[in-house]
């Protein structure tokens, strides 16, 4: 972990990994899309709409994961004053928000033919909507202050308080009666869905995760670049 504490060393390693990550992401998407469309069956009840699940579930999982990552990074910024922690959380927020938006939209598109409605205010959908608002709130805090140190202090609190919503999203289908189906992959007793559907889902999950890692590394570096430019501008203003 020590080598990652030095931003320069971290980016040297990240730069070497980037080409491999982008190629792996592209290959993973091609394979996952092939399996999603051409090498998996229609569901006996859902028909072809089951294929929406291959993009809905990874989006939702990553929306939860990215928020946890932001909370962990915020905690590290608070406790260890790690130079990259705040930047990592800030760079992850728009990506998490995009995954959350995609989970809501694809779920809604699936809901219309299967449930007969685009939206219901059940516990899972509502808590996911709250997660979207938390992402937007977190990003708004960073934009609300000219002083990045003040913005970072408040953004850390938003990330850490908001993480309470993550178990609520996850267990909402167990704690309340919801139209959304209960957990069918990560649950006691193993996955409840057939392997022919589980494999394409796993591949798409890998593709989404690789895309997040690749994009996040570039976004993180962008954030450090922007900070460097800001610091230089402030320095030149102070000299003049």
């Amino acid at each position, binding site marked *: 972990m020590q080598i990652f504490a030095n931003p*320069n060393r971290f980016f040297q390693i990240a730069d070497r990994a980037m080409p491999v990550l982008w190629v792996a992401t592209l290959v993973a998407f091609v394979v996952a899309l092939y399996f999603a469309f051409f090498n998996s069956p229609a569901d006996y009840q859902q*028909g*072809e*709409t089951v294929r*929406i699940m291959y*993009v809905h579930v990874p989006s939702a999982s990553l929306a939860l994961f990215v928020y946890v990552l932001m909370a962990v990074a915020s905690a590290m910024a608070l406790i260890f004053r790690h130079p990259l922690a705040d930047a990592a959380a800030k760079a992850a927020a728009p990506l998490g928000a995009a995954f959350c938006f995609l989970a809501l*939209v694809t779920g809604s598109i699936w809901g219309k033919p299967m449930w007969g409605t685009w939206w219901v205010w059940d516990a899972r959908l509502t808590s996911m909507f709250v997660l979207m608002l938390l992402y937007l709130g977190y990003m708004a805090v960073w934009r609300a202050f000219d002083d990045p140190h003040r913005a970072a202090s408040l953004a850390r609190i938003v990330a850490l308080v908001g993480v309470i919503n993550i178990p609520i999203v996850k267990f909402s289908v167990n704690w309340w009666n919801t139209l959304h189906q209960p957990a069918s992959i990560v649950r006691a007793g193993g996955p409840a869905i057939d392997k022919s559907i589980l494999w394409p889902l796993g591949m798409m999950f890998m593709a989404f995760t690789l895309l997040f890692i690749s994009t996040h590394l570039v976004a993180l570096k962008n954030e450090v670049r922007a900070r460097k430019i800001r610091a230089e501008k402030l320095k030149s203003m102070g000299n003049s």
Partner: protein
Amino acid sequence: MIDWNADHVSFVLVAYGIVTLLLAAIVVATLRRAVTLKKTLAGMNLSDPGQRDKA
């Protein structure tokens, strides 16, 4: 394999279309910002993070 004539295939295509467009837009925007910031750093004679500082 997908049956293109089955019910609700249009819902599947719309869902995949939205996902593709949004993810592609995010990747392109992030990479374009990287290029812009790199140029700004070079213009200020500053090194990119992870590279040795210019003399």
